């Protein structure tokens, strides 16, 4: 998601007469370093997959919680470094999909696929956020109000 939208606003390398501050000098209006985007394109990390095997679409605020088997994710040689990083990030405190995407600087779609792999391997499980038809009930809302007042 973020990569796609970012691409839409990057100052183009060939924009002639651009007055944008990042491209003040037309001779230097080339993409260097971080400007050029990631060396490995995001969906290469998922081997081209855009959806995971898990049936559920993971909500942005679904929390990723490590299973006991995730104690040493480095031992599983089939995991990519990004998988290992996700498990490590979650082992201190459960992280939401949105937080993982921001932390890893990867599109949410990529994080969903990687987390789906970890669920498949039973290294993590994912909390289901409040299902639309059931909660949040009025008690939870009251607790939120009280909690905010105490801030």
């Amino acid at each position, binding site marked *: 998601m973020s990569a796609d939208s970012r691409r839409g606003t990057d100052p183009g390398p060939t924009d002639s007469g651009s007055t944008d501050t990042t491209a003040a000098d037309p001779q230097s209006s080339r993409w260097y370093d971080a400007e050029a985007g990631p060396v490995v394109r995001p969906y290469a990390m998922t081997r081209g997959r855009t959806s995971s095997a898990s049936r559920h679409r993971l909500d942005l605020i679904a929390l990723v919680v490590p299973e006991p088997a995730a104690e040493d994710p480095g031992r599983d040689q089939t995991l990519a470094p990004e998988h290992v990083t996700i498990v490590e990030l979650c082992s201190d405190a459960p992280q*939401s999909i949105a937080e993982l995407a921001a932390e890893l600087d990867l599109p949410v779609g990529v994080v969903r696929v990687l987390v789906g792999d970890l669920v498949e391997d039973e290294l993590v499980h994912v909390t289901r956020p409040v299902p639309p038809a059931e909660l949040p009930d009025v008690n939870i809302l009251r607790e939120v109000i009280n909690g*905010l007042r105490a801030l």
Partner: protein
Amino acid sequence: MAFGRSSRVKQRPVEPVTLKILVAGGFGVGKTTAVGAVSEIRPLRTEERLSEAGRPVDDLEGVESKTTTTVAMDFGRITVREDLVLYLFGTPGQDRFWFLWDELAQGALGAVVLADTRRLEDCFAAVDYFERRRIPFTVAVNCFEGAGQFPAETVQAALDLDPEVPVLLCDARDRSSVRDVLIAVVEHALERAARDGRPVAT
């Protein structure tokens, strides 16, 4: 340090209930600022410099000094209790990113529509969006320096809002001001839940 690690895993972390509130409004109205003011974490964001490509599209009148705009997710977190976490999502400000809204709105507890009285029409789309989906929302007028100050009733009438929709004046830079806006949203959601006897989330 095998000891430290295994003891951490044995003690399973609590699994909090997560909720979300959206912060919507026109381009440059202060959504990112508002999220940052109350978030306990460094607001996680993808901000990109507004490029030449966006210049014909993004109307900068009244916000000429703004040089960056949020084009993607932008969110913060408030841990209400150990087992209750509130996430705030700033919605993309420009019309051409509306396709991102439906996912953000899914399961949202409520929304804040930030308004700027100099460009009130910018928030029409957001108001309309939440009205149609019956997502409880409040309108918060971000009091910019140099913008005319209008009483909340005037803004309510100008936006032709349902009388039950709370309208507040706020300062998006101020933590307690934004917190009060969030409390108003949740109270509004609570009132509606109690009245309708139906679930709040949509």
